[in-house]
Protein backbone atom coordinates (compact mmCIF):
# COMPACT_ATOMS: atom_id res chain seq x y z
CA UNK A 1 0.00 0.00 0.00
CA UNK A 2 1.17 3.48 -0.81
CA UNK A 3 -0.68 6.34 0.79
CA UNK A 4 -0.34 9.99 -0.17
CA UNK A 5 -1.41 12.31 2.62
CA UNK A 6 -1.96 16.03 2.04
CA UNK A 7 0.76 16.16 -0.56
CA UNK A 8 1.65 19.61 -1.89
CA UNK A 9 4.52 20.37 -4.20
CA UNK A 10 5.51 23.59 -5.92
CA UNK A 11 8.49 24.85 -7.85
CA UNK A 12 10.23 28.18 -7.79
CA UNK A 13 9.99 29.99 -11.11
CA UNK A 14 11.01 33.54 -12.02
CA UNK A 15 7.30 34.44 -12.00
CA UNK A 16 6.59 33.12 -8.54
CA UNK A 17 5.84 29.65 -7.29
CA UNK A 18 4.19 27.20 -9.62
CA UNK A 19 2.07 24.67 -7.78
CA UNK A 20 2.19 21.19 -9.29
CA UNK A 21 -0.44 19.72 -7.02
CA UNK A 22 -2.06 20.72 -3.77
CA UNK A 23 -3.37 18.65 -0.85
CA UNK A 24 -3.46 15.36 -2.67
CA UNK A 25 -4.87 12.44 -0.73
CA UNK A 26 -4.87 8.98 -2.21
CA UNK A 27 -4.42 5.35 -1.30
CA UNK A 28 -3.02 2.91 -3.81
CA UNK A 29 -3.81 -0.64 -2.78
CA UNK A 30 -1.26 -3.41 -3.08
CA UNK A 31 -0.93 -5.07 -6.43
CA UNK A 32 -1.84 -2.05 -8.54
CA UNK A 33 0.45 -0.79 -11.23
CA UNK A 34 0.32 2.97 -11.44
CA UNK A 35 0.72 4.99 -14.61
CA UNK A 36 1.45 8.71 -14.46
CA UNK A 37 0.77 10.93 -17.45
CA UNK A 38 0.72 14.59 -18.25
CA UNK A 39 2.45 17.12 -20.40
CA UNK A 40 6.12 18.05 -20.18
CA UNK A 41 6.84 19.97 -17.02
CA UNK A 42 3.60 18.92 -15.35
CA UNK A 43 5.54 17.26 -12.55
CA UNK A 44 5.30 13.58 -13.48
CA UNK A 45 8.88 12.71 -12.65
CA UNK A 46 8.70 14.77 -9.48
CA UNK A 47 5.62 12.88 -8.34
CA UNK A 48 7.32 9.59 -9.17
CA UNK A 49 10.37 10.57 -7.16
CA UNK A 50 8.28 11.77 -4.23
CA UNK A 51 6.43 8.46 -4.17
CA UNK A 52 9.77 6.70 -4.28
CA UNK A 53 11.13 8.66 -1.29
CA UNK A 54 13.89 10.34 -3.28
CA UNK A 55 12.37 13.80 -3.50
CA UNK A 56 10.29 15.54 -0.87
CA UNK A 57 7.04 17.49 -1.03
CA UNK A 58 6.60 20.98 0.41
CA UNK A 59 4.19 19.50 2.89
CA UNK A 60 2.41 16.22 3.43
CA UNK A 61 3.72 12.68 3.57
CA UNK A 62 4.02 9.49 1.62
CA UNK A 63 3.28 6.51 3.85
CA UNK A 64 4.28 3.06 2.73
CA UNK A 65 5.56 -0.25 4.00
CA UNK A 66 6.69 -1.36 0.56
CA UNK A 67 10.21 -1.67 -0.72
CA UNK A 68 10.49 0.84 -3.53
CA UNK A 69 13.32 0.80 -6.04
CA UNK A 70 15.45 3.64 -7.36
CA UNK A 71 14.36 4.89 -10.81
CA UNK A 72 14.95 1.99 -13.13
CA UNK A 73 17.91 2.23 -15.46
CA UNK A 74 19.35 5.22 -13.63
CA UNK A 75 23.08 5.57 -14.14
CA UNK A 76 23.65 8.89 -12.34
CA UNK A 77 24.88 7.16 -9.21
CA UNK A 78 27.78 5.48 -10.97
CA UNK A 79 31.28 6.52 -10.07
CA UNK A 80 33.26 6.84 -13.30
CA UNK A 81 36.62 5.80 -11.95
CA UNK A 82 35.24 2.58 -10.50
CA UNK A 83 34.60 -0.52 -12.57
CA UNK A 84 31.13 -1.76 -13.44
CA UNK A 85 31.59 -4.56 -10.96
CA UNK A 86 32.61 -2.20 -8.16
CA UNK A 87 29.66 0.06 -8.85
CA UNK A 88 27.31 -2.89 -8.85
CA UNK A 89 28.84 -4.16 -5.62
CA UNK A 90 28.25 -0.74 -4.06
CA UNK A 91 24.55 -0.82 -5.00
CA UNK A 92 24.31 -4.33 -3.55
CA UNK A 93 26.00 -3.07 -0.40
CA UNK A 94 23.58 -0.25 0.29
CA UNK A 95 20.75 -2.74 -0.18
CA UNK A 96 22.26 -5.10 2.34
CA UNK A 97 23.46 -7.73 -0.13
CA UNK A 98 26.91 -8.96 0.82
CA UNK A 99 29.04 -12.04 0.40
CA UNK A 100 27.65 -14.99 -1.50
CA UNK A 101 24.38 -13.43 -2.58
CA UNK A 102 26.30 -10.37 -3.79
CA UNK A 103 28.38 -12.54 -6.08
CA UNK A 104 25.22 -14.12 -7.47
CA UNK A 105 23.70 -10.72 -8.16
CA UNK A 106 26.92 -9.55 -9.82
CA UNK A 107 27.01 -12.61 -12.06
CA UNK A 108 23.41 -11.98 -13.00
CA UNK A 109 24.07 -8.33 -13.79
CA UNK A 110 27.07 -9.22 -15.92
CA UNK A 111 25.10 -11.84 -17.80
CA UNK A 112 22.07 -9.64 -18.33
CA UNK A 113 23.94 -6.48 -19.30
CA UNK A 114 25.97 -8.38 -21.91
CA UNK A 115 28.94 -6.09 -21.55
CA UNK A 116 31.40 -8.95 -21.17
CA UNK A 117 34.89 -8.00 -20.04
CA UNK A 118 33.94 -4.35 -19.81
CA UNK A 119 32.31 -5.27 -16.53
CA UNK A 120 35.77 -4.98 -15.02
CA UNK A 121 36.67 -1.74 -16.79
CA UNK A 122 36.06 1.74 -15.33
CA UNK A 123 32.55 2.98 -16.02
CA UNK A 124 33.90 6.18 -17.57
CA UNK A 125 35.18 4.10 -20.49
CA UNK A 126 31.66 2.83 -21.25
CA UNK A 127 29.51 4.01 -24.12
CA UNK A 128 26.15 5.44 -23.09
CA UNK A 129 24.44 2.27 -24.28
CA UNK A 130 26.66 0.11 -22.11
CA UNK A 131 26.09 2.37 -19.16
CA UNK A 132 22.31 2.02 -19.52
CA UNK A 133 22.60 -1.73 -19.92
CA UNK A 134 24.56 -1.98 -16.71
CA UNK A 135 22.07 0.27 -14.91
CA UNK A 136 19.12 -1.68 -16.24
CA UNK A 137 20.71 -5.01 -15.36
CA UNK A 138 21.24 -3.76 -11.82
CA UNK A 139 17.68 -2.55 -11.48
CA UNK A 140 16.17 -5.90 -12.32
CA UNK A 141 18.68 -7.90 -10.26
CA UNK A 142 17.63 -6.45 -6.93
CA UNK A 143 14.15 -7.40 -5.77
CA UNK A 144 11.60 -4.77 -4.80
CA UNK A 145 7.84 -4.56 -4.29
CA UNK A 146 7.59 -1.48 -6.47
CA UNK A 147 9.79 -0.46 -9.35
CA UNK A 148 9.94 3.13 -10.49
CA UNK A 149 10.13 3.59 -14.23
CA UNK A 150 10.73 7.03 -15.68
CA UNK A 151 10.13 7.07 -19.43
CA UNK A 152 12.42 4.24 -20.42
CA UNK A 153 11.17 0.68 -20.27
CA UNK A 154 13.96 -0.55 -22.45
CA UNK A 155 17.31 0.63 -23.68
CA UNK A 156 19.83 -0.34 -26.30
CA UNK A 157 19.42 -2.31 -29.50
CA UNK A 158 16.41 -4.34 -30.63
CA UNK A 159 17.76 -7.55 -29.15
CA UNK A 160 18.30 -5.98 -25.73
CA UNK A 161 14.90 -4.26 -25.85
CA UNK A 162 13.21 -7.59 -26.41
CA UNK A 163 15.08 -9.05 -23.47
CA UNK A 164 14.05 -6.14 -21.24
CA UNK A 165 10.40 -6.52 -22.13
CA UNK A 166 10.53 -10.20 -21.31
CA UNK A 167 12.11 -9.53 -17.96
CA UNK A 168 9.60 -6.84 -17.11
CA UNK A 169 6.71 -9.14 -18.02
CA UNK A 170 8.27 -11.71 -15.70
CA UNK A 171 8.71 -9.12 -12.93
CA UNK A 172 5.10 -8.02 -13.12
CA UNK A 173 4.05 -11.35 -11.64
CA UNK A 174 5.84 -10.66 -8.36
CA UNK A 175 6.19 -6.88 -8.24
CA UNK A 176 4.42 -3.66 -9.20
CA UNK A 177 5.42 -0.75 -11.31
CA UNK A 178 4.97 2.98 -11.12
CA UNK A 179 5.47 4.25 -14.64
CA UNK A 180 5.89 7.68 -16.17
CA UNK A 181 5.56 7.49 -19.93
CA UNK A 182 4.41 9.29 -23.01
CA UNK A 183 3.82 6.09 -24.88
CA UNK A 184 0.17 5.15 -24.48
CA UNK A 185 0.60 1.46 -25.47
CA UNK A 186 3.17 1.04 -22.72
CA UNK A 187 0.83 2.53 -20.15
CA UNK A 188 -2.15 0.51 -21.39
CA UNK A 189 -0.19 -2.70 -21.28
CA UNK A 190 1.40 -2.23 -17.87
CA UNK A 191 -0.85 -0.09 -15.68
CA UNK A 192 -4.04 -0.50 -13.70
CA UNK A 193 -4.43 2.88 -12.04
CA UNK A 194 -3.92 6.17 -13.87
CA UNK A 195 -2.78 9.51 -12.51
CA UNK A 196 -3.25 12.51 -14.74
CA UNK A 197 -1.28 15.66 -13.96
CA UNK A 198 -3.03 18.51 -15.70
CA UNK A 199 -3.20 22.27 -15.40
CA UNK A 200 -5.91 21.91 -12.77
CA UNK A 201 -3.81 19.66 -10.59
CA UNK A 202 -3.76 15.95 -10.03
CA UNK A 203 -6.55 13.53 -10.86
CA UNK A 204 -6.60 9.85 -10.05
CA UNK A 205 -8.58 7.29 -12.06
CA UNK A 206 -9.37 3.68 -11.29
CA UNK A 207 -8.38 2.64 -14.77
CA UNK A 208 -5.54 3.96 -16.82
CA UNK A 209 -7.86 4.22 -19.87
CA UNK A 210 -9.78 7.10 -18.30
CA UNK A 211 -6.58 8.99 -17.61
CA UNK A 212 -5.40 8.38 -21.16
CA UNK A 213 -8.71 9.59 -22.54
CA UNK A 214 -8.45 12.82 -20.56
CA UNK A 215 -4.84 13.30 -21.56
CA UNK A 216 -5.53 12.83 -25.25
CA UNK A 217 -8.58 15.05 -25.09
CA UNK A 218 -6.34 17.73 -23.62
CA UNK A 219 -3.79 17.63 -26.41
CA UNK A 220 -5.19 20.07 -28.96
CA UNK A 221 -7.26 21.95 -26.42
CA UNK A 222 -5.27 24.25 -24.13
CA UNK A 223 -5.16 27.33 -26.41
CA UNK A 224 -8.88 27.28 -27.11
CA UNK A 225 -9.77 26.48 -23.54
CA UNK A 226 -7.95 29.49 -22.16
CA UNK A 227 -9.56 31.79 -24.69
CA UNK A 228 -12.93 30.36 -23.74
CA UNK A 229 -12.25 30.93 -20.09
CA UNK A 230 -11.40 34.56 -20.62
CA UNK A 231 -14.69 35.29 -22.30
Amino acid at each position, binding site marked *: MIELRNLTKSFKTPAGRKVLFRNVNAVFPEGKNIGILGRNGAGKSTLLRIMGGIDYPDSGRVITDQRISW*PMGLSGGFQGSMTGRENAAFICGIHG*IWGGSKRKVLDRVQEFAEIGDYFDAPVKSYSSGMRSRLAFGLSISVDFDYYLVDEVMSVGDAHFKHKCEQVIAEKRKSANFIIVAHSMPTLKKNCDVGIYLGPSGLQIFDTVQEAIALYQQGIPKPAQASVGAQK
Partner: protein
Amino acid sequence: MHPVVQRNPWQIQRDVIRALLIREMKTRFGKWRLGYAWVLLEPAMHIMLLAAIFSFMGREFYPGIPTALFMLGGIAPFIFFSNCFGKGVAAVESNRGLFNYRQLRPFDAVLTRVLLEFAIYLFSLVALLAILAWFGVTARFNDFLMLIGINLLFFCFCLGVSLTMCVVGTKFPEAAKFAPMIVRPLYFISGVFFSLEQVPEEYHGYLSWNPLLHVIELTREGLFASYHGVFADLPYLATSSLVMLAFGLLVYRSQWRDLVRSQ
Protein backbone atom coordinates in the same frame (compact mmCIF):
# COMPACT_ATOMS: atom_id res chain seq x y z
CA MET B 1 16.43 -13.34 -7.75
CA HIS B 2 17.86 -12.07 -4.53
CA PRO B 3 15.41 -10.40 -2.27
CA VAL B 4 16.24 -7.25 -0.43
CA VAL B 5 15.69 -8.48 3.09
CA GLN B 6 13.74 -6.32 5.50
CA ARG B 7 16.33 -4.51 7.56
CA ASN B 8 15.95 -2.38 10.65
CA PRO B 9 17.24 1.20 10.53
CA TRP B 10 20.52 0.33 12.23
CA GLN B 11 21.26 -2.40 9.73
CA ILE B 12 20.50 -0.05 6.86
CA GLN B 13 22.78 2.59 8.35
CA ARG B 14 25.53 0.04 8.82
CA ASP B 15 25.22 -1.33 5.27
CA VAL B 16 25.19 2.16 3.78
CA ILE B 17 28.25 3.35 5.71
CA ARG B 18 30.15 0.16 4.91
CA ALA B 19 29.37 0.38 1.18
CA LEU B 20 30.21 4.09 1.11
CA LEU B 21 33.51 3.55 2.91
CA ILE B 22 34.58 0.98 0.33
CA ARG B 23 33.51 3.33 -2.43
CA GLU B 24 35.35 6.32 -0.98
CA MET B 25 38.52 4.31 -0.53
CA LYS B 26 38.38 3.11 -4.11
CA THR B 27 37.69 6.53 -5.60
CA ARG B 28 40.16 8.42 -3.45
CA PHE B 29 43.15 6.17 -3.77
CA GLY B 30 42.29 3.58 -6.39
CA LYS B 31 43.08 5.77 -9.36
CA TRP B 32 46.56 6.91 -8.35
CA ARG B 33 49.80 5.11 -8.90
CA LEU B 34 50.92 3.69 -5.54
CA GLY B 35 47.24 3.64 -4.57
CA TYR B 36 46.75 3.36 -0.84
CA ALA B 37 50.30 4.51 -0.13
CA TRP B 38 48.95 8.03 -0.55
CA VAL B 39 47.10 7.64 2.73
CA LEU B 40 50.51 8.03 4.28
CA LEU B 41 52.35 10.05 1.67
CA GLU B 42 49.93 12.98 1.62
CA PRO B 43 50.30 14.08 5.24
CA ALA B 44 53.90 12.87 5.34
CA MET B 45 54.93 15.21 2.54
CA HIS B 46 53.17 18.13 4.17
CA ILE B 47 54.71 17.51 7.55
CA MET B 48 58.17 16.67 6.28
CA LEU B 49 58.30 19.79 4.14
CA LEU B 50 57.45 22.08 7.03
CA ALA B 51 59.66 20.17 9.42
CA ALA B 52 62.53 20.40 6.96
CA ILE B 53 62.12 24.16 6.58
CA PHE B 54 62.04 24.80 10.28
CA SER B 55 64.82 22.36 11.08
CA PHE B 56 66.87 24.12 8.46
CA MET B 57 66.29 27.40 10.24
CA GLY B 58 67.86 25.61 13.16
CA ARG B 59 65.23 26.45 15.70
CA GLU B 60 63.99 24.25 18.43
CA PHE B 61 60.38 25.05 19.19
CA TYR B 62 60.06 23.30 22.43
CA PRO B 63 62.92 22.24 24.66
CA GLY B 64 63.29 18.50 24.72
CA ILE B 65 61.06 17.74 21.73
CA PRO B 66 62.56 17.31 18.26
CA THR B 67 61.15 19.80 15.74
CA ALA B 68 59.74 17.11 13.43
CA LEU B 69 57.75 15.54 16.26
CA PHE B 70 56.52 18.91 17.47
CA MET B 71 55.28 19.69 13.96
CA LEU B 72 53.69 16.29 13.53
CA GLY B 73 51.64 16.77 16.69
CA GLY B 74 50.23 20.01 15.31
CA ILE B 75 49.92 19.42 11.59
CA ALA B 76 48.33 15.97 11.63
CA PRO B 77 45.25 17.05 13.64
CA PHE B 78 45.00 20.25 11.66
CA ILE B 79 44.98 18.44 8.31
CA PHE B 80 42.19 16.22 9.63
CA PHE B 81 40.16 19.24 10.66
CA SER B 82 40.75 21.12 7.43
CA ASN B 83 39.81 18.08 5.33
CA CYS B 84 36.57 17.62 7.26
CA PHE B 85 35.79 21.28 6.77
CA GLY B 86 36.43 21.21 3.03
CA LYS B 87 34.79 17.85 2.37
CA GLY B 88 31.74 18.95 4.32
CA VAL B 89 31.21 21.96 2.07
CA ALA B 90 31.27 19.77 -1.05
CA ALA B 91 29.55 16.72 0.43
CA VAL B 92 26.14 17.24 -1.17
CA GLU B 93 27.16 18.56 -4.58
CA SER B 94 29.75 15.88 -5.24
CA ASN B 95 27.36 13.10 -4.26
CA ARG B 96 24.16 14.29 -5.95
CA GLY B 97 23.84 11.13 -8.02
CA LEU B 98 23.88 8.99 -4.91
CA PHE B 99 20.76 10.52 -3.42
CA ASN B 100 18.71 8.71 -6.06
CA TYR B 101 18.97 5.75 -3.72
CA ARG B 102 16.48 6.41 -1.01
CA GLN B 103 18.52 4.99 1.84
CA LEU B 104 21.40 7.35 1.09
CA ARG B 105 21.28 10.79 2.66
CA PRO B 106 23.78 13.64 2.93
CA PHE B 107 24.36 12.57 6.53
CA ASP B 108 25.77 9.25 5.34
CA ALA B 109 28.08 10.97 2.88
CA VAL B 110 29.37 13.33 5.59
CA LEU B 111 29.74 10.65 8.25
CA THR B 112 31.62 8.39 5.85
CA ARG B 113 34.04 11.09 4.86
CA VAL B 114 34.72 12.14 8.43
CA LEU B 115 35.21 8.50 9.44
CA LEU B 116 37.63 7.94 6.60
CA GLU B 117 39.55 11.14 7.30
CA PHE B 118 39.71 10.16 10.96
CA ALA B 119 41.10 6.74 10.13
CA ILE B 120 43.66 8.25 7.75
CA TYR B 121 44.66 10.81 10.38
CA LEU B 122 45.20 8.25 13.12
CA PHE B 123 46.95 5.84 10.81
CA SER B 124 49.29 8.45 9.38
CA LEU B 125 50.05 9.88 12.83
CA VAL B 126 51.03 6.48 14.21
CA ALA B 127 52.93 5.48 11.08
CA LEU B 128 54.89 8.73 10.94
CA LEU B 129 55.74 8.51 14.64
CA ALA B 130 57.00 4.99 14.02
CA ILE B 131 59.05 6.02 10.99
CA LEU B 132 60.59 8.95 12.86
CA ALA B 133 61.36 6.70 15.81
CA TRP B 134 63.10 4.32 13.44
CA PHE B 135 65.34 7.18 12.37
CA GLY B 136 66.04 7.92 16.00
CA VAL B 137 63.80 10.97 16.38
CA THR B 138 61.98 10.23 19.60
CA ALA B 139 60.60 11.87 22.69
CA ARG B 140 59.31 10.27 25.87
CA PHE B 141 55.70 9.18 25.45
CA ASN B 142 53.17 10.45 27.91
CA ASP B 143 49.57 9.27 28.11
CA PHE B 144 47.77 6.89 25.76
CA LEU B 145 44.40 7.02 27.47
CA MET B 146 44.33 10.80 27.27
CA LEU B 147 45.05 10.60 23.53
CA ILE B 148 42.09 8.28 23.01
CA GLY B 149 39.81 10.63 24.90
CA ILE B 150 41.02 13.70 23.02
CA ASN B 151 40.64 12.02 19.67
CA LEU B 152 37.12 10.82 20.39
CA LEU B 153 36.18 14.38 21.28
CA PHE B 154 38.03 15.70 18.25
CA PHE B 155 36.07 13.29 16.05
CA CYS B 156 32.79 14.62 17.48
CA PHE B 157 33.98 18.16 16.91
CA CYS B 158 34.90 17.52 13.27
CA LEU B 159 31.66 15.65 12.58
CA GLY B 160 29.75 18.63 13.94
CA VAL B 161 31.77 21.05 11.83
CA SER B 162 31.39 18.88 8.73
CA LEU B 163 27.61 18.55 9.12
CA THR B 164 27.27 22.30 9.61
CA MET B 165 29.43 23.02 6.58
CA CYS B 166 27.46 20.50 4.52
CA VAL B 167 24.30 22.52 5.15
CA VAL B 168 26.01 25.89 4.74
CA GLY B 169 27.86 24.83 1.60
CA THR B 170 24.69 23.62 -0.08
CA LYS B 171 22.45 26.51 0.90
CA PHE B 172 25.10 29.08 0.05
CA PRO B 173 27.34 27.68 -2.70
CA GLU B 174 29.49 30.81 -2.38
CA ALA B 175 30.67 29.42 0.95
CA ALA B 176 33.04 27.16 -0.97
CA LYS B 177 35.01 30.25 -1.91
CA PHE B 178 35.26 31.45 1.67
CA ALA B 179 36.16 28.08 3.15
CA PRO B 180 39.93 28.41 2.55
CA MET B 181 39.78 31.96 3.89
CA ILE B 182 38.46 30.64 7.18
CA VAL B 183 40.75 27.66 7.43
CA ARG B 184 44.00 29.44 6.62
CA PRO B 185 43.94 31.96 9.49
CA LEU B 186 43.03 29.10 11.82
CA TYR B 187 46.29 27.52 10.78
CA PHE B 188 48.15 30.41 12.36
CA ILE B 189 46.12 30.90 15.51
CA SER B 190 45.93 27.22 16.41
CA GLY B 191 49.57 26.82 17.28
CA VAL B 192 50.25 24.40 14.45
CA PHE B 193 53.87 25.28 13.90
CA PHE B 194 54.79 27.61 16.69
CA SER B 195 53.96 27.83 20.30
CA LEU B 196 51.43 30.53 21.08
CA GLU B 197 53.16 31.33 24.32
CA GLN B 198 55.19 33.87 22.39
CA VAL B 199 52.04 35.90 21.80
CA PRO B 200 51.61 38.71 24.36
CA GLU B 201 49.79 37.60 27.47
CA GLU B 202 46.89 40.01 27.02
CA TYR B 203 45.67 38.14 23.90
CA HIS B 204 45.73 34.70 25.49
CA GLY B 205 42.17 35.07 26.64
CA TYR B 206 40.94 35.42 23.06
CA LEU B 207 43.14 32.70 21.64
CA SER B 208 41.93 30.18 24.17
CA TRP B 209 38.45 30.29 22.69
CA ASN B 210 39.69 28.28 19.74
CA PRO B 211 38.96 24.56 20.33
CA LEU B 212 41.55 23.57 17.73
CA LEU B 213 44.27 25.11 19.83
CA HIS B 214 43.19 22.92 22.71
CA VAL B 215 43.13 19.84 20.53
CA ILE B 216 46.63 20.45 19.27
CA GLU B 217 48.12 21.30 22.65
CA LEU B 218 46.42 18.36 24.31
CA THR B 219 47.56 16.02 21.54
CA ARG B 220 51.12 17.14 22.07
CA GLU B 221 50.72 16.75 25.80
CA GLY B 222 49.45 13.23 25.30
CA LEU B 223 52.29 12.38 22.97
CA PHE B 224 55.24 13.96 24.73
CA ALA B 225 55.96 13.77 28.41
CA SER B 226 57.95 17.00 28.45
CA TYR B 227 55.27 19.13 26.76
CA HIS B 228 53.00 21.34 28.79
CA GLY B 229 50.50 23.47 26.90
CA VAL B 230 49.63 26.76 28.53
CA PHE B 231 46.18 26.73 27.01
CA ALA B 232 45.38 23.01 27.14
CA ASP B 233 42.08 22.51 28.91
CA LEU B 234 40.36 19.16 28.57
CA PRO B 235 36.97 20.13 30.05
CA TYR B 236 36.78 23.06 27.63
CA LEU B 237 37.57 20.78 24.69
CA ALA B 238 34.93 18.28 25.86
CA THR B 239 32.27 20.96 26.16
CA SER B 240 33.03 22.67 22.89
CA SER B 241 33.18 19.35 21.01
CA LEU B 242 29.84 18.17 22.30
CA VAL B 243 28.28 21.57 21.68
CA MET B 244 29.66 21.58 18.14
CA LEU B 245 28.35 18.07 17.49
CA ALA B 246 24.93 18.93 18.86
CA PHE B 247 24.85 22.11 16.80
CA GLY B 248 25.84 20.25 13.63
CA LEU B 249 23.22 17.58 14.17
CA LEU B 250 20.51 20.15 14.88
CA VAL B 251 21.37 22.25 11.84
CA TYR B 252 21.39 19.14 9.67
CA ARG B 253 18.17 17.80 11.10
CA SER B 254 16.31 21.04 10.55
CA GLN B 255 17.54 21.46 6.98
CA TRP B 256 18.27 18.04 5.49
CA ARG B 257 15.17 17.78 3.34
CA ASP B 258 16.06 21.05 1.66
CA LEU B 259 19.44 19.61 0.72
CA VAL B 260 17.87 16.77 -1.23
CA ARG B 261 14.58 18.34 -2.30
CA SER B 262 14.05 19.79 -5.74
CA GLN B 263 13.09 23.43 -5.29
